[in-house]
């Protein structure tokens, strides 16, 4: 009986630690996608300025309150503008931004294939 109790205790301990770890994973994930306003060009995750530290506390607090990732982004976007997230949302004025690499990739590929094909044709 005692052994089972200890096992159960251990089991719950691990789950508690695991859940705590998961939370910090989410904090890291969110803070990596946020731009630091004070130390521009660096993410909130990377930097230790007062602002970045505050945002990390904020994320933690909001997660504990049960806010979703999107809600946290929305909150910060309302305060600091779309600029604060590294990954812009897919909407009307960012379509080109998202699709352009794909277009370039496809066109580049076509160009290479065409060149290679023509060369082959000539060789034959």
């Amino acid at each position: 009986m005692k052994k089972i109790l200890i096992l159960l205790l251990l089991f719950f301990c691990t789950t508690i630690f695991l859940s705590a770890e998961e939370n910090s994973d989410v904090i890291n994930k969110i803070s990596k996608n946020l731009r630091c306003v004070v130390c521009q060009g660096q993410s909130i995750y990377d930097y230790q300025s007062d602002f970045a530290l505050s945002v990390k506390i904020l994320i933690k607090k909001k997660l504990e309150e049960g806010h979703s990732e999107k809600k946290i982004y929305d909150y910060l976007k309302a305060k600091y503008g779309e600029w604060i997230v590294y990954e812009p949302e897919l909407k009307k004025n960012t379509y080109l931004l998202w699709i352009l690499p794909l277009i370039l990739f496809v066109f580049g590929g076509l160009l290479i294939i065409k060149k290679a094909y023509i060369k082959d044709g000539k060789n034959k």
Partner: protein
Amino acid sequence: MDIIIFYGNWRCISNIKKMSKKNKIYFILIIFISIVVFFSLLIGLNKENKYYPNAKNRLLDKEIIAKDLLLNKKVNFENIIKSNNYTIINIWSSWCVPCRSEHKFLMSLSDNTKINIIGLNYKDNENNAQNFLNELGNPFDFVLVDEDGLISIDLGAYGVPETFIINNQEKLIVKRYIGPIDKQILDEIKKIVK
């Protein structure tokens, strides 16, 4: 090296008449694109590339509750900014050097009874904050404590020192100054608050 490149370019240009039509178009296109790229990069180089989040005409959050340093109890922003037309929120800290230089301008504003001045004490030790006010005077009607910087984020603030002017009726941020207040900004504030 330059001479070789120059010579090469010159030869290219001198050969332009001999080029086929297709090559000519390519040649002109390449020159054109490189000029455009050159100038756009040049312009980009001279531009300031720092981003300042826009705070103008943003509404304040409905509920901001903070501890008051002097009264030692929690107060709600909403209740504080009810009187008068305008509120000035100044984010300051005893460890912030520029805050010392702007303090005398805040003191000169404190004579104006038409406005509320709220000091938001940013990530500070309470004793140091008290000493700072004892030493330089207290221009604030309320001194609120922002222990972990969350209230500043709620305001959409950037750092310390920073000053917001708020229209009390609409709860709207009218103007925001990043950095310390100087003579020019003081005049601007006085003009807005009038």
